[in-house]
């Protein structure tokens, strides 16, 4: 049987961001895959060293479009640790609220993209329409749909009043009804299942070997979630479940992410109902004493690690970012072995790649 090379990328309808995946196919079966990344590299880690800590908040936000808030959270947390600041509780609650809202929006976006890749355009249209509810809430809170610019070193820059809280809670109820519908589709719709069951399987052992994190790891049975294991912000005061599945295929990842959205919704409700009063930020000195810190957060795609080293000036000496997509990219080769060409977009979507994050 003759072999053909199918180029997925750098531009391809299945990719949101540029990535080069050269697949060698024998008929409809993939025998080899070569991955190249770096198309979205912007040299951000070098830019961080040329800007002061305050400027960097906004540049860190632009590492990724979908998980922008969690990047600033991780960065601000790190710098606050270096400065020894105590962030006021109201600020932490608002920060966490936006983290969870962002998780819902990211998972809904992802569900739509996966559905589109398996040809289920209807679910794509519905999820992206319901995602607008979350985006509207975020825009009302911060002034921006994706680049919120909410975090400051020492707290947050936004506030919320009780009327607004009530309106948000009402809309979250609507959203929960819609997410239940999608859960129904995932559980019961036959064509969705035949396109996602047993596709892109990653065993727990393989996942551990590649150090995969986030929903991909949880779908393979690895029970790890930074929000529960090493709580930051106010996660230690919230009541939530960590969703773990065991099949390790695209369907399991869909289940994990959809149910995580429901958990995030519950968390948003708890945050809004228990919002403490108080100041929104503490004053942060401009010069950060010398030292180094590792700040970790649970981004929608998994564990996000920020290493910040300061030399006593007002500019960081080094900011190193380890995004959760990187190990998922490494594990892609395993998942693409011996699968059908038609399942490649489903696998790519199932891993929820964020190349902007991975390339920085």
């Amino acid at each position, binding site marked *: 049987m003759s072999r053909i090379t199918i180029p997925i990328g750098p531009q391809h309808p299945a990719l949101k961001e540029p990535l080069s995946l050269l697949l060698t196919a024998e008929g409809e079966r993939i025998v080899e895959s070569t991955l190249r990344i770096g198309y979205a590299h912007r040299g951000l880690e070098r830019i961080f060293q040329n800007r002061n800590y305050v400027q960097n908040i*906004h540049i860190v936000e632009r590492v990724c479009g979908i998980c922008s808030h969690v990047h600033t959270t991780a960065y601000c947390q790190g710098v606050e640790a270096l400065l020894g600041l105590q962030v006021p509780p109201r600020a932490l609650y608002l920060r966490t609220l936006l983290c969870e809202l962002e998780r819902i929006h990211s998972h809904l976006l992802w569900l739509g993209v996966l559905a589109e890749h398996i040809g289920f355009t209807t679910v794509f249209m*519905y999820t992206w329409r319901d995602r607008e509810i979350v985006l509207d809430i975020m825009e009302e809170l911060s002034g921006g749909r994706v680049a919120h610019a909410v975090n400051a070193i020492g707290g947050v*820059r936004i506030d919320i009043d009780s009327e607004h809280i009530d309106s948000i809670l009402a809309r979250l109820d609507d959203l929960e009804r819609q997410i239940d*519908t999608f859960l129904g589709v995932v559980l019961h719709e036959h064509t969705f299942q035949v396109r996602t069951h047993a596709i892109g399987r990653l065993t727990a052992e393989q996942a551990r070997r590649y150090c995969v994190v986030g929903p991909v790891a949880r779908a393979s049975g690895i029970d790890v979630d930074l929000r529960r294991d090493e709580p930051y912000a106010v996660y230690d005061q919230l009541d939530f479940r960590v969703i773990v599945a065991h099949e390790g295929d695209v369907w399991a990842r869909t289940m994990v992410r959809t149910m995580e959205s429901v958990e995030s919704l519950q968390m948003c409700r708890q945050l809004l109902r228990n919002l403490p009063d108080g100041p929104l930020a503490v004053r942060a000195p401009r010069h950060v004493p010398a030292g180094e810190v590792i700040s970790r957060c649970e981004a929608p795609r998994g564990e996000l690690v920020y290493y910040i080293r300061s030399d006593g000036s007002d500019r960081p000496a080094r900011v190193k970012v380890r995004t959760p997509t990187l190990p998922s990219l490494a594990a892609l080769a395993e998942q693409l072995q011996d699968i059908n060409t038609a399942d490649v977009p489903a696998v790519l979507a199932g891993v929820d790649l964020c190349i902007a994050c991975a390339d920085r």
Partner: protein
Amino acid sequence: MSLLRSLAHLLAELGRTLRAERVTVQFPFAPAELPNDFRGRVTIIEEASCKGCGLCARDCPALALELERHDREHFRLIHYRDRCAYCGQCADICPSHIIVLASELVSPTHDKDTLTQVLVERTGDSTS
């Protein structure tokens, strides 16, 4: 049966869609409704209070603010709207609290020069 369930959802959606209005605003032929704290055009609300300290220019992540300073009575604050990320950091840091991001959209233009605005100009004339 899953087909009946899917059909039920679809028809419910259809009911909603048929009753819904278009959400697209035909901007700029119709006014754009901006929320109250929309981060729009960078404006100075009281030019006389500007001290020329340069904190806004120092903290701008996009390097969109530039202070040409000779001394306390001779300086110019220039804002490059095309570089601006509308993050509001300048408004946060200004010690005189005179920078405000107004609820106005900055319109695109064919003339690049209109995107560079001089926010504050102090020429040493003590009557200004």
